[in-house]
């Protein structure tokens, strides 16, 4: 199946940059990652959860470290497991209501980062893992693509099934409860989707910029959107265009592709900010 997609890319995009296998893989990767980040970003921004997703990105370091130490070939599963644990921990501490959510997340985030760095530098070899910091889209292989495709399908399916409930819960928990919507279930589900998606993508996007990819397209979109549909569709469009443009640019400039993509989304934010209709 992959060879057919490669052939399709050759037909549609008969360019120099698209002739390499690693660029074809990266292209498919971007086409899978960008839309789900664009979609989830709208809800992350509306729920003021940008800090949460940032914490998840950073805490992936600990996941990597644990994966390396217990020496399972791919640290990915340890990372996913750790991000789920962290999410559950944040939710339960949040429920105990001892400090503001931001503080709770901050505590977990800094602890996880510090733990990750300590564990990874244990034998003085932190430099080996810097790839995780900036990510490497060009290293996606066919197995990774399968994983990304699965993530893509799951997120889109959930987004079709539970988006309205997530939106309803985001307004006011009491109101949602009065209409029989179980807020805890949907809150948890949403945080888990974000956690798993961020973790799965982190190797290619990088710890340092993964949150920008989640937040910036949505932030740019809300400058010009008037309703939820425009908000989501503009966000996806901005993420896709930035993803493609950033990938091609990074190929010719020889820059890190993740960061190049983020710079273009930032450019979109600046443009939409300037042209946005005057706030009422």
């Amino acid at each position, binding site marked *: 199946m992959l060879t057919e997609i490669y052939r399709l890319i050759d037909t549609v995009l008969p360019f120099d940059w698209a002739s390499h296998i690693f660029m074809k893989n990266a292209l498919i990767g971007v086409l899978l990652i960008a839309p789900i980040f664009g*979609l989830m970003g*709208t809800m992350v921004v*509306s*729920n*003021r959860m940008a800090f949460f997703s940032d914490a998840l990105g950073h805490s992936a370091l600990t996941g990597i470290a644990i994966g390396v130490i217990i020496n399972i070939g791919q640290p990915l599963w340890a990372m996913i497991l750790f991000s789920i644990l962290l999410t559950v921990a944040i939710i339960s501490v949040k429920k105990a209501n001892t400090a503001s959510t931001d503080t709770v997340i901050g505590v977990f985030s800094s602890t996880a980062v510090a733990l990750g760095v300590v564990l990874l530098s244990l034998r003085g070899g932190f430099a080996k893992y810097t790839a995780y910091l900036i990510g490497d889209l060009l290293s996606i292989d066919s197995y990774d693509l399968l994983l990304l495709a699965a993530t893509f399908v799951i997120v889109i399916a959930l*987004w*079709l*099934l539970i*988006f*309205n*409930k997530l*939106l*309803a819960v*985001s*307004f*006011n*928990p*009491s*109101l949602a*409860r*009065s*209409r029989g919507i179980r807020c805890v279930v949907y809150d948890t589900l949403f945080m888990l989707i974000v956690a798993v998606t961020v973790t799965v993508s982190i190797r290619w996007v990088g710890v340092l910029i993964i949150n920008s990819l989640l937040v910036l397209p949505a932030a740019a*979109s*809300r400058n010009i*959107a*008037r*309703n*939820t*549909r*425009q*908000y*989501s*569709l503009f966000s996806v469009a901005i993420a896709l265009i930035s993803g493609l443009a950033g990938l091609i640019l990074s190929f010719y400039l020889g820059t890190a592709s993740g960061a190049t993509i983020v710079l273009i989304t930032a450019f979109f934010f600046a443009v939409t900010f300037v042209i946005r209709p005057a706030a*009422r």
Partner: protein
Amino acid sequence: MNRQADNGRNGARCGAICCTRIINLGVTRGQYEILRGVNLHIHCGELTAVIGGNGAGKTTLLKAIVGEIPYSGELIYLDEKETRASGPVIGYVPQKFDFDRSSPISVFDFFASFLSNKPVWLVRSKKLREEILQSLSRVGAQHLIDRKLGALSGGELQRVLLALALDPVPNLLLLDEPVSGIDHSGLRMFYKLVSDLRRQFDLSIILVSHDLGMVEKYADRVIFVNNKTVELCGTPEEVFSNGGVAELFGLNLRSRGKGTQC
């Protein structure tokens, strides 16, 4: 503990139509007891106003009825034949509606998220739009359907929330009036609207209110929440003439304590 609040006037009607009975309701959060021994009858077609000082537990009472916070005691809903009806449709207008005002969410999106399962980020059905327009028309707010939720005024937002609470038409309507953000004419319009809707749909309404003038004019019954429980209930005249109520709200004392003990 048979001290149910029933002022007699509507006692006979209660069983005939429907009623909500709250028996010995208490709410404790952590170490703090917020409410205890609350006994109430709420009747159909009646507007019951809840008054009391700040932090008296008025909002907590509504949240317990909604089921958002755990409570002790019993909530019983009786239908026309005096038999227990389970799970009434509850309409709720929260006091604080603390959402992100800069979010690009229209009034249509807001309604659709509660009324439909079709993902609102992808589908905008004409039929749903008609339904929402019809809901909004009950509160005279059809023109707001494409406005951004965050751009509405306090009064407009309250009407939109009321329209949602009425769709589907509830058995029990709980309104938690915001402390601020609505001017006096908006408030008058709101009370008039709620009062008319009560007759139109024969609703049981519990309204947490901060405006005694409005309560006096529109409420059928008044509940005074004080010292963690319902201390008094009765007609507005009865409750307002009580010394404790008068003192708390700075009313001119006309006569002493005719309000029924609850």
